[in-house]
């Protein structure tokens, strides 16, 4: 709790308590925490005397603001023209169904953040999936799931609590 107060206090002070600087303040908060934690937003709203509903409106309006922490791994699926024609919508659907995550969302166990982007610039490899910067080419709904499933195994040994929490 004190950490929330301290961090938001610093940010607010930095902008001279100006309500009009709400967005830069929220950007700083996200840069610090990786996302916008509810507690911090509450603190910020209180300190600026701005309703929490306004902060929530702003946070949900801009797609660059995140209200939940990012997953340990970044899964990016290309939905560009070529990948799209080669079946990336099916891959997206398969991943969404298998891991119960929507595009732009993070799995409940915080292992993966799934993003659907417009083009990763590797059309010759279509359909492309990028996991933590590594490109996978010619992906099928089946192979995409297999590629992603190969990742949590590492996590199990490193952070057994994360997996338990998800169950």
């Amino acid at each position, binding site marked *: 709790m004190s950490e929330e107060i301290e961090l938001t206090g610093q940010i607010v002070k930095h902008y001279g308590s100006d309500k009009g600087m709400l967005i830069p303040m929220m950007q700083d908060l996200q840069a610090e925490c990786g996302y916008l934690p*509810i507690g911090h*937003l509450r603190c910020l709203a209180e300190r600026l005397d701005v*309703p*929490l*509903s*306004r*902060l*929530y*409106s702003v946070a*949900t*309006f801009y797609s660059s603001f995140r*209200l939940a922490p990012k997953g340990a791994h970044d899964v990016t699926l290309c939905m560009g023209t070529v990948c799209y024609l080669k079946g990336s919508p099916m891959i997206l659907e398969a991943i969404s169904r298998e891991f119960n995550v929507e595009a732009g969302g993070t799995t409940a166990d915080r292992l993966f953040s799934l993003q659907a982007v417009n083009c990763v610039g590797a059309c010759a490899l279509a359909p492309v999936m990028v996991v933590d910067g590594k490109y996978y080419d010619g992906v099928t709904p089946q192979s995409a799931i297999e590629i992603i499933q190969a990742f949590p195994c590492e996590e199990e040994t490193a952070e057994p609590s994360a997996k338990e929490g998800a169950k």
Partner: protein
Amino acid sequence: MPTVTIDGQKVRIKKGLTVLDAAKKAGIWIPTLCYHPAVASEASCRLCMVELDRGDWRQLITACNYPVRQDIVVYVSSERAEKARRGVMELLLARAPESRELAALACRMGVEKTHYPSVTESQRNCILCGLCVSVCEQVIGRAAIGFAGRGAERTVAAPFRQASEDCIGCGACAAVCPVGTIKIRLHKDEREIEISPFKSRAKMVLCERCGMPMYSGQVSREAMSKVKIGRKAFTEYLRLCPKCRRTETAERFASVPVRRE
């Protein structure tokens, strides 16, 4: 005082009032949904569009927030204005297909059905007029709800889509909702008032006589804090439900001996 000519009828109104005010004075009906005298007009529903004569061209304007500054000529029942309003109504009907209030208004405007597909479940029956949001912030001063998301996903929600701590359960949002989507639910067993669909609940104050739940406790505290004079009389007033208050008053009168000359 500027003169507004509406469909040929001339009315004089105070400078700064709106075209809608002028139309009301002239007895001309303009359909409205998001307009409410208690809050600032946002003209978000676009249902009150009328045509403004600009000399060599005519412009569609929203009557509810167009201030009259000089003599102007507007057309409410011109073909273009009516077509524009009907088009808006069709779009609104697609958003709120289950609203009886909206259907009645559509009927009055001569719109029978919509050609547009209906929207997703989460946004269903909300026309996003923002009246509830404005009332909560400007009148009640709580701002417990606001808009969330954007574009096709825009909805009215409490922060984090959880029951809001700022909500006092006054029900003002339900009272102003023009399509009847926000509702007050009473949970008599738990003595709670719920504002649906925002999930917020508040404990209710019971009538001291009959035990009927009357209003949320926070509302009475809020009201008390605003009362400056006659606090005692007001406290007395808040004790009973209207029915019991009548009964008690009647009893009091009955107990007064009548003086006969």
